């Protein structure tokens, strides 16, 4: 649902860089998105296609790298992936402690674009 404003935000950044680099056509856009965000790849592309019609980014393909949600153990610093299907009874696989910090999974990053 919020794909629309998110894709508008991406398009704005892309168009800004397209002007800076005198781009005539954008072929692909590299994104890094955390798995905690509720975005759906298919809808992202559809909304992007809709919004970018008539701009230099029309027809550009989104290349999304999904960043897993990772926890870092507050006790020993060990990093491991969060099991989103089961948030209770989680202990550090290394030291057995139960206090963590969420260190990734909320990213919204535009890496690069392929353009001519």
């Amino acid at each position, binding site marked *: 649902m919020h794909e629309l404003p998110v894709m508008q935000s991406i398009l704005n950044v892309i168009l800004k860089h397209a002007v800076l*680099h005198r781009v005539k056509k954008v072929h692909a856009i590299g994104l890094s998105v955390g798995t905690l965000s*509720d975005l759906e790849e298919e809808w992202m592309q559809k909304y992007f296609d809709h919004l970018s019609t008539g701009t230099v980014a029309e027809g550009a393909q989104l290349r999304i790298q999904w960043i897993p949600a990772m926890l870092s153990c507050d006790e020993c610093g060990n990093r491991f992936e969060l099991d989103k299907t089961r948030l*209770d009874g989680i202990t550090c696989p290394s030291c057995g402690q139960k206090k963590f910090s969420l260190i990734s999974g909320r990213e919204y990053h535009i890496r*690069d*674009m392929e353009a*001519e």
Partner: protein
Amino acid sequence: MAEIRLIEIKEEILTDNRKEADNLRAKLKKTGTFLLNLMSSPGAGKTTLILKTIEQLRGRLRMGVLEADIDSMVDAEKIAASGIPAVQIRTGGFCHLDASMVMKGLDAFDLKCLDLVIIENVGNLVCPAEFDTGAVRNAMILSVPEGDDKPLKYPLMFSVSHVVLVNKIDFLSLSDFDMDVFRERVHTLNPAAAIMETSGRTGQGVAAWADWLECEVKAFIA
């Protein structure tokens, strides 16, 4: 044949909104106004809790309410009837509020005369979690009938909320909601989150919530 180049961008998405939100927080610091963003699914008890909170804090804080319930004046009218200024934001069918919409909505208030403004965000556990509204604190309501598994389905919402209110606690004995498991799930995502049990029906926990909120407000506007 034009050559294809790889152009590095390295920008965060939604930075415009985040900047706008930071600007709003700086402005609120100047006027001495604490902004609370209250989120939940439709029907979890936001309006009811806001009315109860107003009752508790009347005379202690000068309050206002920013309403974003889609296509309805009902909630703003209910709140205005309690004697507190309430402004309805027209979201135009949007699934969430962003900082610029909040900024516009706040123009209707004289912020220098208010200590606390509560935003009743659009009823939805997905989209509002993605957009910083410029609030000083995010609060969410999870009502007991929704179930203790909601952190699994809406992890982002639980990870951005400073306080989680488990509302309709009067239903607890009738349900299979496991409070210990729920707390553990929330704290896995967000170890710093405060979790409070409330009932908009019986009033249980509302005084403790209002005290917590008053402390946060006083600390911000001091």
